[in-house]
């Protein structure tokens, strides 16, 4: 029996973590995502499901606690916001290099540096291109509603374990702080299964080593090739997106997360004026829905990438549309903590494609 509640995105994802059978959460306070740990601590998940919640002394310590618990084969997560995610990148690289599953939530805010506590989508490159050192990717999910904040949680754990990879839920201050109705899924049991690769004491078997180190470059290259093969599998099997009013569209907007919600409103304005605009909302940012964008581009007069950044995702849209160079690809976005309005997007759209 599902339950309907009015919750902040940050609260919904915390509740969803407990319900998804998460074994442990390690985190450090940072605005605008502190409600995640606050909610968890208040809920006493150790009593509800046995889930561990621990406040670490730093983002760096938190991600390394995640590394340790993930090595034990547990469903483990952390959450932070942009500057904190930068601190976690070393640990994320180690986790990716050691083929461990975990979930990392980024409720992104404006940067660079200490930036601002207001929402932004300027961590796209960091999330989808690797971020830390070495050739690795995270699988990146981009929720656009409080409902998706909750629903992406079990999905993120499933994908993390399917590919033994860090999964990032790339949210933003808008989605994290917005209160919406959310239909919560039922409590799932915590897994009692110990994966074949987990370290937990070697009673009755050969010992296991969790490491990202190999001083032999040829072996290290083989490990890298295996990682790349994994990412190729993700590209083939895990692309997720939402198509909105694309069937009759002459123009396309591409936007994720909060920007997708706002873009939908500006598409309404366009359609009121008789301009047929559709939206392609990537739900996975890595793997990126390149093929569907390439296909849609064939019948478009122009594509506008909308994101709260100086233009990051637009590079992937450009890459996806390189077979249709006649279709102009433009970017619009306010950033540094400013959230664009539907009117601003609509105006930019008209200007970019000379429709004003």
């Amino acid at each position: 029996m599902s339950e309907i509640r009015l919750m902040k995105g940050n609260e919904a994802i915390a509740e969803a973590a407990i319900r998804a059978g998460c074994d442990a959460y390690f985190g450090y306070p940072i605005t605008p995502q502190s409600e995640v740990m606050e909610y968890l601590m208040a809920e006493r998940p150790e009593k509800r499901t046995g889930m561990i919640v621990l406040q670490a002394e730093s983002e760096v310590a938190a991600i390394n606690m995640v590394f340790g618990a993930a090595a034990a084969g547990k469903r483990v997560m952390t959450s932070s916001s942009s500057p904190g995610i930068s601190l976690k990148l070393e640990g994320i690289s180690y986790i990716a290099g050691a083929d461990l599953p975990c979930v990392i939530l980024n409720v992104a805010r404006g940067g660079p540096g200490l930036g601002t506590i207001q929402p932004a989508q300027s961590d796209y490159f960091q999330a989808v291109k690797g971020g830390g050192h070495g050739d690795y990717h995270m699988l990146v999910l981009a929720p656009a509603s409080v409902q998706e904040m909750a629903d992406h949680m079990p999905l993120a754990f499933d994908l993390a374990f399917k590919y033994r990879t860090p999964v990032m839920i790339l949210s933003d201050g808008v989605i994290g702080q917005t209160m919406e109705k959310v239909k919560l899924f039922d409590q799932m049991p915590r897994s009692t299964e110990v994966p074949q690769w987990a370290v937990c004491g070697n009673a009755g078997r050969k010992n296991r080593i969790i490491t990202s180190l190999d001083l032999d470059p040829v072996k290290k290259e083989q490990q890298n090739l295996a990682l790349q093969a994994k990412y190729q599998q993700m590209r083939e099997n895990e692309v997720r997106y939402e198509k909105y009013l694309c069937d009759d569209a002459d123009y396309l907007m591409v936007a994720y997360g909060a920007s997708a919600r706002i873009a939908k409103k500006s598409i309404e304005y366009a359609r009121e004026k008789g301009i047929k605009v559709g939206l392609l909302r990537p739900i996975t940012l890595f793997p990126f829905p390149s093929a569907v964008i390439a296909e849609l581009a064939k019948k478009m007069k122009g594509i506008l990438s909308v994101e709260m950044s100086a233009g990051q995702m637009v590079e992937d849209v450009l890459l996806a549309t390189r077979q249709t160079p006649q279709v102009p690809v433009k970017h619009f976005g306010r950033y540094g903590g400013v959230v664009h309005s539907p009117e601003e997007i609509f105006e930019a759209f008209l200007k970019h494609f000379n429709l004003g």
Partner: protein
Amino acid sequence: MNVNDIIKPENLVYSKTSLMNDRELSYCPGCGHGTANRLVHEVIEEMGIGGETIGVAPVGCAVMLYEFSNLDFVQAAHGRATAVATGLKRVMPDKFVFSYQGDGDLAAIGTGETLHTCNRGENITIIFINNGIYGMTGGQMAPTTLVGMKTSTSPYGRDEKWMGSPIDMTKLVSMLPGTYYVTRQAVHTPSAVRKAKKAIQKAFEVQKNKLGLSFVEIVSNCNSGWKMSPVKANQWMEENMLPYYPLGDLKVDGKLITK
């Protein structure tokens, strides 16, 4: 007694621990790491907890420790061993978890993790090898390097005014309420080895009884980093390191030892 009698199993008085494999150790000849590795594994074997133990190897000379061990191991990022150990222990409170870290790892880049892990009183065992230098990277100055000591990054000796004084992490962590057993040992003489082994055993007993954090420093030589023969390095250690880092228990049963 002839040789055939001597090698009979009933006459065996000592053998290599089964928890270490036959791979060649990567440590320099004369280094204390090999002995410390052995003691940790001997204690775990004698306590019969090998099947329930997870080690955490950090960056530094001990980075390859898992190569010589038959235990489950996690290799941690530089300085983060106790955070990784915290994660392991919190989700498996009934297993034994230990970190094995050098002074660069534990007392420089990992100072924050070390202090907070100790302060939380995580029920783990920390083995801390202090040789006053960065061995793996080629003999650079460590936070534990003695004043006046020459290293590749303090070629004219550690200048206290410019580079600060050597940090006594063991004393620091002994002040924290979370630590239950804190001791400083060495492995450069047979009697020191025996005492160190007892201390390591006590540390794991503390963990077994879920009493809190146990912390064992082993003051060690780094003959190659110090540019000395193994014998000379041990003499130098006794004359210079041990006065600054005196051996013995600092905290037992959660109580500070006052001398």
